């Protein structure tokens, strides 16, 4: 019963988030602050708890938090991930069924794959330009260390 209520609350707030996002976009505003609407869900859960409707209060809160994290993650995916090279390669087979390596290479440019990302990293303050060279900032070093820690921990190499 608790989890059904939490699921209903989450999807109601999710629909509200879609509406708020659409409203802001129509006015030329794109902001991650629209995710603040999920706070409403916590108030609703608190009200349910006050009226004794949540038989599993701890589980309900954790469940809602996880649903919100998944929701926010999927909300950010189109912006952070964009159209990936992998999906562009597979998508290209919808237009042309058989392709050579050269055909697939033709889908991309170094400008789109590398240069744009270097610019994005610089704009995000993760790297800085010193003359003709690029080096990481303090923030970028932390992010890179996190990646290297993941690689070391899971014994992985970046396949990107």
């Amino acid at each position: 019963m608790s989890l059904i209520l939490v699921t209903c609350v989450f999807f109601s707030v999710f629909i509200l988030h879609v509406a708020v996002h659409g409203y802001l976009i129509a006015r030329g505003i794109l902001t991650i602050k629209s995710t603040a609407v999920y706070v409403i869900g916590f108030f609703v859960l608190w009200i349910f708890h006050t009226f004794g409707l949540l038989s599993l209060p701890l589980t309900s809160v954790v469940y809602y938090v996880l649903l919100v994290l998944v929701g926010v993650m999927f909300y950010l995916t189109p912006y952070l991930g964009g159209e990936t090279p992998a999906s562009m390669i597979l998508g290209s087979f919808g237009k042309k069924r058989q392709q050579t390596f050269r055909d697939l290479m033709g889908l991309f440019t170094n400008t789109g794959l590398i240069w744009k990302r270097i610019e994005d990293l610089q704009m995000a303050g993760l790297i800085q330009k010193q003359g003709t060279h690029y080096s990481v900032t303090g923030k970028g070093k932390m992010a890179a260390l996190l990646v290297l820690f993941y690689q070391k921990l899971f014994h992985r190499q970046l396949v990107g």
Partner: protein
Amino acid sequence: MDTWILVTSGASFVLLFLLLLAVFRMVHAYDAPVWYIRMTGFCGVCCLGLWWVVVFLGWVHETPQIIAMGVIASLLLYGLLTILFLFGVFGVFEASITLHILTKIALSGKEGIHPNAILSSYNRNTIVKRRIDRFLWSGELLVVGGRYRLSKRLSYFMMRERFLNILRWMFPTL
């Protein structure tokens, strides 16, 4: 009951994390996603096993219906944790071109690196080749007479792309 739901789902996720630490050291890099799914399923079964132990030892005194609901709740929480880890950590750290470039720059030290030096070892040629190799390994692409073609009508990446299209429709950009 409330606590046991959190304990069983949390313990299953910790077990998954530890198993991935061990398994990723042994399997081929391109097989990692397949093993992630296998280990997720295995730890889901372990979650059920933990519930069996909890009930068998008499640590929970509830009706079978309420215990069944508790098991479902545990699996739901565990499922959400694995989704978060898969898309939020594993997916991002494994295949992000941006993070790849960032680590290359970070490893160059204080002097930094010239963009041409990045391009000499990491460019569209290497990026496309790695993805094609991965698709050939997973069987999503086939080579016929020197040309590539799709072997499956519906692949993981196709599904991902369709899902992303729904997200783009729900959350349009400027």
